[in-house]
């Protein structure tokens, strides 16, 4: 999982050891960042 570039919510929870509090709002932000990582890395053409 460590090598996966764009991670799911479940993978983010595990990778960052997110608490229940973190999963209320921070997880949403992290998910948007993952989508942005995808956009940046897929903009090569």
């Amino acid at each position, binding site marked *: 999982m460590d*090598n996966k570039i764009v991670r799911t919510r479940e993978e983010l929870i595990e990778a960052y050891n997110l608490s229940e*509090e973190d999963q*209320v709002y*921070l997880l949403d*932000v992290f998910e948007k*960042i993952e989508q*942005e*990582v995808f956009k*940046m890395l897929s903009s090569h053409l």
Partner: protein
Amino acid sequence: MSTKKEERNQIFTDLFTGKRPSRIPVTLTMNIEAALEYYGYSMLRDLYNSKLCYEVADRLAAELDSDLIPVSPASTNAAVHRYVKNQFMVPGNDGFFQHPDISPMEVDEYPEFNKNPFEFIVNKIVPRVNKVFDTEPDLGYIRMAAAKKVVNEQYIGMNQKLSDKHERGDVSKIIAGAFAPFDYIADYIRSFSTMMLDMRRRPDWVLEACEGALAYEVSKIQALPDPQSGVFSEVFLPLHMAPYMRTKDVEKFYWPTYKKIIRAIQEKGFIPHVFYENDWSPHLDLLEDMPGMHVAKFESPAPELLAKKVPSRNVISGVYPFSIIRSGKKQEVIDEAKRIIDILGPGGNLILNPNKRFIRAADLNVENIRTFIESVREYGTY
């Protein structure tokens, strides 16, 4: 534009162009964390919700009639720090972020740093400080850029919306941050404690590192977009280390490169907005040597000393004791405002602002802040 906003903008315009304004402006410096806590929100959870950050900043602006918005919703990069696992900004058990005194560069690495500071920062410092690089060295910068973009976009336009809604001044804006080169090395490359030892053990390396950090900082300033027409664009510099140094060491190690970064900021068309943290009383004579005009916010020196030592071409800010606002009686708040205005007001170059940042709810004595603002309005009219 509203009349109240126009009046506020005229005051700041006068101040920044060397004219005496119609009255002394009054501003506050505050973390969004303080506002969130004050309205009963959790830093562990709600600090990451940009809409809630806006909501509490809006509520506080409705309560506190300072000349600029009292708090920016965007005063936190907490989600970025968490995402990149930034070791310089680490949340405590209550969710409040602290800056640990860590040293990402060893003393024997100075020569390598001094050879090419930018490449050393990019290849060594950033990956050591942000633990996202540990598992993904090739993706670290992409993740960092993505996190900054996403978080920044969540807060875009909020400050302007609040300024318009609450009719606050918006003719001056802090558009970037910078560092005195010595502070940059102490805060981000070595550490507060090791830097003082380095200065004794390898003064030549430290001096060379300050020049390298200066070149890096100047390049960052030059890369910023040109100032927006009709707006006083400020670059904020929080100064850290000089109060812990002897004046002769400040003159040798700190001042030369600090003065050059100030000049570079001015040459780009920006106004340096400097926070002289802690007690700069022993070094105030150096201010005569500062180029041009800057906003000089002070934490500790007595107003009588500032009136004597700070050249009148500059704008003086801060000064008002935060401790009186936090725990003084109402009359003490009023009396202190009158006392400072009597000493520094005649210069016509004063912004009255508490000398420390409000960072937690315990700091927010809202009644006293209101009294402070009203006192400056009443006694600070020219």
